[in-house]
């Protein structure tokens, strides 16, 4: 029997993979993709609980999370292009001005 626990566990596994991607990758594009994975994990969690409790509000929150993810991807990719123009690279290690 597949219950809400399975979905929550899967969602958390997805979240952990996304966090790992954000932490270990040097390429900004892949970091942004990992953030999308994290937002997907949040959506999966919201919808699993929406199903468990029979409450539509979880699905409505997920709509807003998807909206946020779209805006975040657009801004993030614009920043990446901007950085590429500036540095000729999309490597996180090359953006070290504020390090001092």
């Amino acid at each position, binding site marked *: *029997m*597949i*219950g*809400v*626990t*399975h*979905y*929550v*566990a*899967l969602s*958390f*596994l*997805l979240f*952990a*993979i996304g*966090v*790992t991607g954000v*932490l*270990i*990758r*040097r*390429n900004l*594009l*892949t970091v942004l*993709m*990992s953030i999308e*994975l994290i937002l*997907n994990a949040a959506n*999966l969690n919201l*919808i699993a609980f*929406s*199903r*468990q409790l*029979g409450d*539509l509000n979880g*699905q*409505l929150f997920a*709509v*807003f999370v*998807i*909206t*946020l*993810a*779209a*805006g975040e*991807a*657009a*801004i993030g*990719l*614009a*920043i990446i*292009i901007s950085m*590429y*123009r500036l*540095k*000729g*690279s*999309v*490597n*996180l290690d090359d953006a070290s001005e504020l390090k001092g």
Partner: protein
Amino acid sequence: MTAPFFFWFFAAIVVFGAVGVVAMRQPVHSALFLLLSFFGVAALFITLNAEFLAAVQVLVYAGGIMVLFLFTIMLVNIRRTAGQPYVHRQAGAALLVAFFLLAVVGGTIVASSRTSSLADAPADPAKLSTTTISRMMTETVDGKTVKTPVTEQVAGNSQAVAWGLYRDYLLPFEVASVFLLVAMIGAVVLGKRTMEYVD
């Protein structure tokens, strides 16, 4: 909630895709694995009776965001980083932190799965596809306008979500559209301007 086969099958696809995103060296391969993961999540949404969101997931993520990613990968020259290591120097420490996170929260999920409401049987799925709307019906009786309240049920997940968005969450919905406008203007400005690099 659903047939175990579908859950395990699509969960395997989602996890495989997610691991591929993190492990692939080339960003374009990562993007294709991300696409696989998005489709898996959309399928899981269907198993959770969220048909509308499954469609939105495919349209917005697999359609819109993925095209944005692929265009950006096309615009930036990724060949230049080909020879360099693609993970941070502190990757070992980062993996340790991630496994710690996995252990702590995973342990909490497992521990609470037996005692808390997580173990309860799920609610009736019909609740997710029906919503009650009440409106005033206007009719003319003997030359006078009479308003009588009526309630009716709408069926279908998309209709239920639409009623929720346009009735209960109208203000957040409008704020979200302003947010998208701001994001669009921001993306255009950031992408257009050539910044002078002052050392």
